[in-house]
């Protein structure tokens, strides 16, 4: 985000706080994109794992807990719980992202309204 031009528009404390808020939201937006990418991968991995499980014939599954692989019999339930949690997490992140996009759009309107060309709020 840069400012340019040689105009004399005054910047009030309220404007500064709006700019600060926009900066914070933008940072959080990028962090969320990263987190959503990881969450999607986790979801896919769990999906693949449960598909593999259905295809495989064995009773005993080596399920990773921490750093070791424990031999377990009732893995499907555990997997389902993990899948449920993962998809909830993904949904929560997506919702937060939507909310941030909306808030940023509002702030853009306000800031561009006051500063017009003197402010640049786009991604470089």
């Amino acid at each position, binding site marked *: 985000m*840069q400012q340019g031009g040689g*105009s004399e528009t005054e*910047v009030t*404390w309220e404007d500064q706080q709006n700019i600060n808020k926009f900066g914070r939201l933008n940072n959080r937006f990028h962090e969320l994109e990263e987190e959503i990418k990881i969450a999607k991968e986790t979801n896919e991995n769990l999906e693949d794992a449960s598909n593999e499980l259905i295809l495989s014939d064995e009773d005993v599954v080596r399920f990773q*807990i921490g750093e*070791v692989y424990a*031999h377990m019999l009732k893995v499907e339930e555990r997997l389902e719980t993990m899948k449920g949690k993962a998809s909830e997490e993904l949904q929560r992140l997506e919702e937060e992202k939507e909310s941030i996009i909306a808030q940023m759009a509002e702030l853009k309107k306000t800031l561009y309204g006051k500063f017009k060309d003197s402010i640049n709020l786009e991604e470089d």
Partner: protein
Amino acid sequence: MASSSSSPAPMIAERRGIPAATFVEDVETYLTQLGLDVNSSLSFLQERLQQYRLVEMKLLAQQRDLQAKIPDIEKCLDIVATLQAKKGTGEALTADFEVSEGIYSRASIKDTDSVCLWLGANVMLEYSCEEANALLQKNLENAKASLEVLVADLQFLRDQVTITQVTIARVYNWDVHQRRIKQSA
């Protein structure tokens, strides 16, 4: 600390050792108050920005450490929970673990009441399952609380960086404006 009657939130002077950036109401008054000409004030502000960036890097490193620590603690809690679940059944838990890269060995973990926790600094202590749970939960909560404080610190810091950047731009623009006025006069 100054706040005008129409401002939505008061300014904070500093936070945990990080000085707040002074918000400039009017560039001309700011420069006369500081008693600096444009170039000196610009270099002062640039220096402040550098200092903020250094602190930001330190905080980001701490944040990465904490973000790695939290999943570790959660994994430990998972294992303790699994051991506790197996306790009632009387069967041994068979687990494959890594001995060296790519080489795994099988272990049979019998019914047990205690676990050993690695505390760091080459120290490992034996705890009962309940104690281990309690300790790990406490560590997890502390880590999450520290992370929250750290994130708030980073947000404050980034705000100060933004304020300083805006002030630099305004001082520069004011200077350009003054030169234009002088030229046209």
